[in-house]
């Protein structure tokens, strides 16, 4: 590791410890929004690991997240909770692999529409299974896990995603993805197995999203398909990643914190216009800061740019 990497690692550790202390400082409003921020931090970062370099915009995050929730909801009376989280991770990986293999030939807008449709499809299937086989439209998840524990779980997962993301960015796989994002034809003729590289990353981000859903299930207590499979979640993940800058590993987290604070204020002030607000946020981000905060920082701190 170079000196700069050691420095960055120490900064990251310090921030992690600082973030972990939040539940001690406050257990009410700030912890609650802390859980939300941590949720989107993990989701956006893992989303950006795939979509940042390849420019494949996935709107399937909500589908993975919802499946994670329902696996916990369906199995909480039968199996220990931790085992359900592991099962959720495996299910997410398998589903992502299947989707990845099916969508290899799609690119650009077709991929976006496919993933959006997929999220809706999965929601309909889960709803159908519930209404034909279950008794009620929702599932109860009653555990003694409180917000503090959930928050710490998410932080640890986030740290793992960061470490893996850091490792991927330095590896041949990360370089391959950047080449694919620039020009897939060139990538193929450089000898890159583009399908393999894309599927591996898609599996990673899908697995993480499913685990996040499983971790969040105890917080909701009552899980219903309309809440678990909210398309809003997929869109917020995209917005926060774009706001922060999807090209950098630390980009999404820089976007998540201010966005969720503003978002919390907006949803509290305009509870009936949240979709409208989301649309406005989307437009503002795309028009005003197309490269995100990370892009702005790079632009105004040209010294950083030279270091790579």
């Amino acid at each position: 590791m170079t000196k700069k990497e050691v420095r960055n690692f120490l900064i990251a550790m310090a921030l992690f410890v600082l973030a972990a202390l939040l539940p001690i400082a406050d257990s009410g409003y700030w912890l609650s929004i802390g859980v939300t921020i941590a949720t989107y931090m993990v989701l956006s970062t893992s989303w950006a690991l795939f979509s940042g370099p390849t420019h494949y915009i996935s709107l399937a995050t909500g589908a993975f997240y919802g499946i994670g929730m329902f696996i916990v909801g369906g199995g909480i009376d039968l199996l220990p909770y931790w085992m359900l989280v592991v099962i959720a991770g495996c299910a997410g990986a398998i589903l992502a692999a299947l989707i990845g293999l099916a969508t290899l030939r799609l690119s650009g807008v077709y991929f976006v529409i496919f993933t959006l449709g997929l999220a809706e499809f999965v929601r309909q299937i889960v709803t159908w299974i519930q209404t034909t086989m279950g008794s009620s439209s929702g599932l109860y998840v009653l555990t003694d896990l409180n917000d503090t524990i959930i928050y710490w779980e998410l932080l640890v997962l986030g740290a793992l995603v960061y470490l893996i993301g850091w490792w991927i960015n330095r590896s041949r796989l990360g370089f391959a993805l950047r080449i694919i994002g620039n020009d897939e034809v060139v990538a193929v003729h450089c000898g890159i197995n583009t399908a393999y590289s894309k599927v591996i990353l898609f599996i990673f981000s899908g697995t993480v999203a499913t685990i996040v859903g499983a971790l969040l299930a105890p917080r909701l207590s009552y899980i219903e398909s309309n809440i678990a499979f909210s398309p809003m979640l997929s869109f917020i993940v995209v917005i926060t990643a774009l706001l922060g800058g999807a090209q950098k590993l630390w980009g999404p987290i820089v976007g998540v914190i201010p966005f969720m604070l503003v978002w919390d204020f907006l949803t509290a002030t305009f509870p009936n216009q949240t979709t409208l607000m989301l649309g406005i946020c989307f437009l503002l981000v795309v028009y005003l800061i197309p490269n995100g905060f990370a892009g702005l920082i790079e632009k105004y701190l040209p010294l950083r740019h030279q270091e790579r």
Partner: protein
Amino acid sequence: MNALSALSVQNTTKRFGGLVAVNQMSFELRTHEVLGLIGPNGSGKTTMLNVISGALKANSGFVSLFGKVISDQPANLIARSGIARTFQLVRTLNSMNALENVEAGGVFGHRRLWKNSLRSQAIEMLDKVGMAGSMNNPISSLTYIDQKRIELARALMSNPRLLLLDEWLAGLNPSELQIGIDVINNLKSEGHTIIIVEHVMDAIRSLCDRCVVMNTGKKIAEGKPEEVLEDEGVIQAYLGSEHA
């Protein structure tokens, strides 16, 4: 099949719907040979190159590299077995700088370098195409000929056994053209095996050992450049029958 044959194309046909872009093409290429693939616009030269590099799948026939059939493989495996190419319309990786663009060719293909050996090779290749001074420049700041040089350096990074240049000299002004010809001449003297698709006749005369002439997907002549360029059928294909 000749023991020295680097590339062998046999009875290859490529159709797009009803259009036969490449029709029963067969030719051989020896090691260290520079072959010119020429012909009027739309005669199927680039399609032929795309079939060799795996960008397109032939409908029939096969292509083999040093005796091993490659036409049934995907393009990334063909690249790995040692065929590198440039594109008719220059294709660079625009979010990366010049050095990274060149490095891209040496990680996943015929040569699989990483870290220090990758960097030092990339710098050497940039030097070879005369671009060592711009290695940290963003691609968008480079002129057209410089982007073409970067693309060539990327192809050379894999230490290819066969190099395909698709109109690499097209669109250059006279002084750039001379630089371009010198670059390819250097590759030739280093012993590279090359197929050049080209319209610039001066370049073909000075660079190619042999030429294959295509017209409407078929091979109409093959031989030394000065011979095929005098061939009646070839002149007719380029200029029309009244000039023959």
